[in-house]
């Protein structure tokens, strides 16, 4: 039986307060325990470990822990619980291959994921409910029979909302910006002393909102507002927009500071884990996660500042072996424990997708739906 308490202890601690030497041993012990749980409860995972000559009963480091590539979650549904304990299934946006990743959650994992997600978001945007302007359609925030990964991401952020407005319209399965409504919402927001939250998928935010507002010469003064965005960058390649340009264009359009534009990174295979950019523009691992960067050819860990494929380790999922996932994203570790924002932890940047990776991410898929 897994010791749920050991996971609860770690996810109840301050999100970014421990230095590496204090965090590493605590996290490793819980990860080792969770690894043994998955080994015992998930036969395909056990076979994978056996095949790689990995024995979870022996001491191992983060670097030695086997990783599952995200593609594996497309092929089979891995579970470490009996199927009658399944509470929710999360599917990623269908990719260009048409095969989404699927992960199965029991109630405990689902609650744990929400808690971790909420704690990271509150740490970044503050423990205060604000008005949300969601750059999506109205049905994305209401109750619907089917919940897409995109809707699920939007809804998971609403716990920080005091009011919610949307400004996209769906007509014949195509999305269109309700420009007049957006302008009215932004004008109203200028008089909101609390500062609103504007949330959208990266491609929509830039290509259909910021760019359009800039072209029409519309600028707003929204000090205290937060611009949150999430999703793939691949669709933005044709606009030649870098993260820096997106930030500066947002600042110019909405009258906010660089630190108020927050780019969230996360992936379905470890849902609940979210990595916002901090005020200094890098992402931090919380106390309940670690990142390892691997050489794309040898898959061996590389040194800090060297680019490679990102692997994430976290013990929060006990219903499926998503505790060590090799993504298709390229990035690098920037530093450890010395970010000027004051948060501890490993800081990293995501710089792109590996060459053979398909277009994916809710934001990328959403771009295809636009008129």
């Amino acid at each position: 039986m897994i010791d749920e308490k050991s996971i609860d202890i770690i996810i109840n601690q301050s999100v970014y307060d421990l230095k590496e030497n204090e965090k590493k041993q605590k996290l490793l012990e819980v990860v080792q325990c969770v690894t043994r749980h998955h080994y015992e409860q998930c036969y395909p995972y056990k076979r994978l470990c056996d095949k790689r000559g990995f024995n979870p009963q022996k001491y191992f480091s983060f670097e030695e822990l086997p990783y599952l590539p995200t593609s594996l979650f497309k092929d089979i549904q891995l579970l470490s619980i009996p199927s009658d304990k399944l509470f929710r299934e999360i599917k990623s946006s269908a990719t260009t291959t048409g095969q989404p990743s699927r992960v199965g959650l029991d109630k405990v994992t689902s609650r744990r994921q929400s808690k971790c997600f909420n704690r990271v978001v509150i740490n970044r945007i503050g423990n205060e409910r604000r008005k949300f302007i969601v750059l999506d359609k109205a049905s994305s925030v209401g109750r619907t029979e089917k919940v897409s990964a995109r809707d699920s991401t939007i809804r998971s952020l609403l716990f920080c909302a005091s009011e919610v407005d949307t400004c996209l319209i769906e007509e014949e399965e195509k999305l269109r910006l309700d420009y007049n409504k957006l302008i009215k919402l932004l004008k109203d927001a200028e008089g909101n002393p609390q500062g609103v939250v504007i949330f959208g998928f990266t491609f929509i935010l830039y290509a259909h909102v910021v760019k359009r507002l800039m072209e029409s010469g519309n600028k707003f003064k929204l000090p205290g507002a937060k611009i949150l965005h999430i999703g793939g960058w691949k669709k933005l390649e044709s606009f030649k927009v870098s993260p820096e340009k997106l930030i500066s264009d947002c600042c110019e359009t909405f009258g906010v500071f660089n630190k108020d534009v927050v780019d969230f990174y996360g992936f379905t295979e470890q849902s609940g884990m979210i990595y916002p950019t901090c005020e200094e523009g890098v992402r931090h691992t919380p106390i309940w996660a670690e990142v390892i960067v691997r050489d794309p050819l040898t898959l061996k860990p590389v040194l800090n500042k060297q680019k490679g494929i990102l692997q994430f380790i976290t013990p929060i999922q006990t219903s499926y072996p998503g505790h060590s996932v090799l993504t298709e994203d390229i990035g690098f570790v920037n530093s450890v424990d010395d970010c000027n924002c004051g948060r501890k932890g490993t800081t990293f940047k995501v710089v792109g997708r590996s060459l053979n990776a398909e277009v994916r991410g809710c934001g990328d898929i959403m771009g295809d739906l636009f008129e």
Partner: protein
Amino acid sequence: MEGIKQRCAEIMAKVFKIETSQVNDETSPDSITQWDSLSHVQMLSELEKSFSVKINPEEGINLETFKMICDWVEDNVKEG
């Protein structure tokens, strides 16, 4: 407490478009179809207005049943 319960039930009835008689201690998103993330936000705003309180995000996510809501209001509303 009875007064608080009555007012909370009325708020839930208004937001979720149900009868107050349908509300009991165990009422939760699992028992009320209309209780989704958006109507939860609306309910919190109505509670804030009605009881002149501020509910922060951390508190808001823990208000998962009618009983939890009433208990929170009881603990946080200043009488007078």
